[in-house]
């Protein structure tokens, strides 16, 4: 089912739309819609899947599939990229359009935003031109009500000629009705009479000329009127796709295509005589569509309060103002870090006390059973202790940080960050949306890399990919927070947490600055070019759903990241223990490695163990700190590690100064991406060269930065 990249001849970056059917009778439903209409929420509510949702445009670029059952029948839902139109030939639009045309979907559900229905109708009308097997879902009805906007769905249904269902997907309202409408449409119980756009006379005439030929091509369900118009417009990508499609299904059709080509030329000549050149034709087509949308919108949407966005604008004028925009942004981020650091301290201690208590019990149990020492060493001192550290150091900050960050995302603040920072990115000859992919990197760099697909220009996408690693991901925040907490600060209490907040904040700001500098350098060297055009939608602020955010961010993000950390840390713990306890010439393997790396580490303000920890931490950044701890504990004094103070003692006993902590933080910020991220980069770029560069660039940056700082501090005699 569905077409693969090969059969449609689509570019390498496109998703494979191989729809997986559990059951041959399953109905395939494509889910289309503008960005930021809650399409992902509709998808999640229908399928029970937990695709990440956020209040910023362009989030769903990859397609997701999910299945649900309704009245004994199976439905496979395919989430298409959010687009405003199907005419711009951006990557997302082509993917969405090709699926609607050739994806063998039984029907398409178009999700629209009740609060800006008129604009959304643009896409609805375009899809109705291709197929009439459409159900329109007017989502965010609750938001609309709050803004005193009323949508008459019955009337809209009359205009469009297909079923219209009002929903508030995040509250589950209207979804049963939506499923019913989909079921009836799929079963053929509804006879759609899809609204067709009336174009200007010359355009209609041209369509009729070409249609006489396209009708004979055997295009199946494809609307020949729509195909004709696209061909007249000179849509090369579509022409290619159609030819490939036809070759696959009916063998070569050269002759028919040739005579059609001649007719297309005649139609264009005729349009030219009417004063419609290529741009003119495009203007005319879009004007007819937008005009129709406007007309329908006027008749179906009622604004009781025309000024409903005034409040949003007022908020924006403050949040993105010259005076306050940047300070507020930094302050918000700082506040999040501060709450995280302050709030995580106590539960972290509790957790580590509890977990080390369990270690003691387990040890006693092992002694009672007379288990050999090495088994105890491997399982308890190796695997368990590493796990305990990962959990107690990482879980509390993540459980606080993620919900807070998700809250910002849900409010709609992230696009404002992109808006604030765009000027810098432009000067760096990069894309404004890179700020969004950077924000995704705060969660997970691999996710950030995938998010780079929202950037159309290949050059700017590569820049975004190569520099994504400069913002710390979740796996690295705990290291930054822990080291800032125990080392940078001298004071106590509130002052302590404020200073460590500033340290983490400084690290993040530095990461952004390095991102910009490296982007600029790339633009001037191996990725030469000028910034491409960019439009960014600033979506309305939405009231966040606090309860859902807590649950969602905890389950989706916190447990996911923790799960990954634990699954990597367990074997790593075993491996490190073995390295620390297997000796060659009376020196453990770990010490051999660390000694070898020590001179290099010292140059960068660190030591061999730390460098070794970063190298061994390649599978996941989360385990760098546990490895450092384990190496010190295995090779030096054994300390009961039941608090951050004990960690401090351990580190100081191993020669750490504040410079070591700063260098480690800097190197954590600037070093090779983790294994998962590297794999993702390779998958996205399909190139060894770029993957290698994405490894080398941050690492070199880290080496240069750490070397400069360490040597500078030593020269000045500060340590």
């Amino acid at each position, binding site marked *: 089912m569905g077409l693969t990249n090969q059969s449609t001849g689509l570019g390498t970056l496109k998703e494979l739309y191989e729809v997986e059917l559990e059951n041959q009778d399953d109905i395939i439903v494509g889910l289309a819609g503008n960005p930021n209409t809650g399409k992902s929420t509709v998808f999640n509510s229908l399928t029970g899947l937990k695709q990440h949702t956020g209040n910023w445009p362009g989030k769903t670029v990859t397609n997701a599939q999910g299945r649900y059952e309704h009245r004994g029948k199976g439905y496979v839902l395919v989430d298409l990229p959010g687009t405003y139109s199907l005419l711009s030939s951006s990557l997302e639009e082509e993917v969405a359009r090709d699926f609607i045309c050739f994806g063998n979907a039984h029907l398409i559900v178009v999700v629209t935003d009740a609060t800006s229905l008129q*604009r959304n109708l643009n896409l609805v009308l375009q899809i109705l031109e291709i197929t009439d097997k459409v159900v329109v879902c007017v989502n965010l009805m609750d938001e609309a009500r709050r803004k005193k906007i009323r949508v008459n769905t019955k009337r809209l249904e009359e205009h469009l000629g297909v079923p219209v269902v009002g929903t508030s997907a995040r509250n589950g309202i209207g979804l049963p009705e939506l499923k019913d409408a989909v079921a009836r449409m799929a079963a053929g119980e509804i006879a759609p009479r899809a609204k067709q756009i009336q174009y200007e006379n010359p355009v209609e005439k041209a369509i009729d000329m070409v249609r006489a030929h396209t009708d004979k091509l055997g295009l199946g369900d494809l609307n020949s009127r729509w195909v004709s118009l696209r061909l007249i417009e000179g849509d090369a990508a579509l022409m290619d796709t159609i030819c490939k499609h036809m070759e696959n299904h009916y063998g070569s059709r050269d002759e028919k295509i040739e005579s059609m080509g001649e007719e297309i030329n005649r139609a264009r000549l005729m349009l030219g005589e009417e004063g419609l050149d290529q741009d003119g034709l495009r203007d005319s087509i879009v004007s007819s569509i*937008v005009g129709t949308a406007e007309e329908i919108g006027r008749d179906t949407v009622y604004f009781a309060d025309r000024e409903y966005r005034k409040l949003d604008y007022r908020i*924006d004028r403050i949040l*993105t*103002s*010259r005076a306050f925009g940047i300070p507020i942004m930094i302050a918000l981020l700082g506040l999040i870090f501060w709450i995280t650091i302050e709030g995580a301290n106590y539960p972290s201690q509790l957790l580590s006390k509890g977990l080390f208590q369990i270690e003691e019990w387990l040890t006693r149990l092992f002694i009672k059973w007379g288990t050999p020492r090495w088994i105890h060493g491997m399982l308890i001192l190796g695997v368990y202790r590493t796990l305990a550290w990962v959990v107690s150091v990482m879980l509390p900050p993540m459980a606080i940080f993620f919900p807070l960050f998700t809250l910002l995302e849900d409010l709609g603040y992230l696009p404002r960050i992109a808006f604030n920072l765009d000027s810098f990115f432009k000067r760096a000859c990069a894309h404004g949306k890179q700020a969004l992919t950077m924000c995704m990197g705060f969660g997970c760099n691999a996710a950030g890399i995938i998010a780079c697909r929202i950037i159309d220009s290949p050059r700017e996408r590569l820049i975004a990919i190569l520099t994504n690693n400069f913002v710390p991901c979740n796996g690295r925040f705990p290291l930054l927070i822990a080291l800032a907490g125990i080392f940078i600060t001298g004071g106590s209490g509130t002052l302590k947490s404020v200073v460590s907040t500033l340290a983490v904040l400084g690290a993040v700001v530095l990461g952004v600055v390095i991102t910009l500098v490296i982007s600029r350098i790339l633009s001037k060297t191996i990725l030469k070019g000028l910034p491409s055009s*960019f439009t960014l939608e*600033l979506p309305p602020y939405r009231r966040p759903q606090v309860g859902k955010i807590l649950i969602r961010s905890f389950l989706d993000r916190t447990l996911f990241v923790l799960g990954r950390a634990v699954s990597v840390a367990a074997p790593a713990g075993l491996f490190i223990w073995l390295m620390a306890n297997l000796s060659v010439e009376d020196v453990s393997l770990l010490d051999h490695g660390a000694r070898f790396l020590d001179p290099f580490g010292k140059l960068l303000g660190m030591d061999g163990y730390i460098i070794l920890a970063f190298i061994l931490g390649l599978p996941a950044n989360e385990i760098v700190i546990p490895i450092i701890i384990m190496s010190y504990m295995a090779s030096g004094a054994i300390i009961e590690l039941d608090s951050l103070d004990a960690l401090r003692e351990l580190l100081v006993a191993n020669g750490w100064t504040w410079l070591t902590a700063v260098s480690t933080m800097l190197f954590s910020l600037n070093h090779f991406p983790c294994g998962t991220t590297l794999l993702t980069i390779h998958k996205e770029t399909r190139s060894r060269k770029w993957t290698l560069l994405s490894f080398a660039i941050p690492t070199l940056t880290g080496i240069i930065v750490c070397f400069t700082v360490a040597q500078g501090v030593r020269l000045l005699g500060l340590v």
Partner: protein
Amino acid sequence: MAGKYVPLSSLKPGNVARVRELTMGGNLRRRMLDLGLIRGTRIEVINRSPFGDPVAYSFRGALIALRSEEASGIIVEV
């Protein structure tokens, strides 16, 4: 209302104008059209970003940020 024709980028926050024509061609023109920027579209300048560029414009119920390069290619009637 026969007004002056000026590039959109020359307007200040609070100004309101109507789209007269797009001077850019190709793909960029398509994008602007798809956003609904056809002749006659009412457009309001909402605010500048902290460094003056891009600027947020409100039209057809949406708030869209455009860089000065794009905005200067949109001729509006004030």
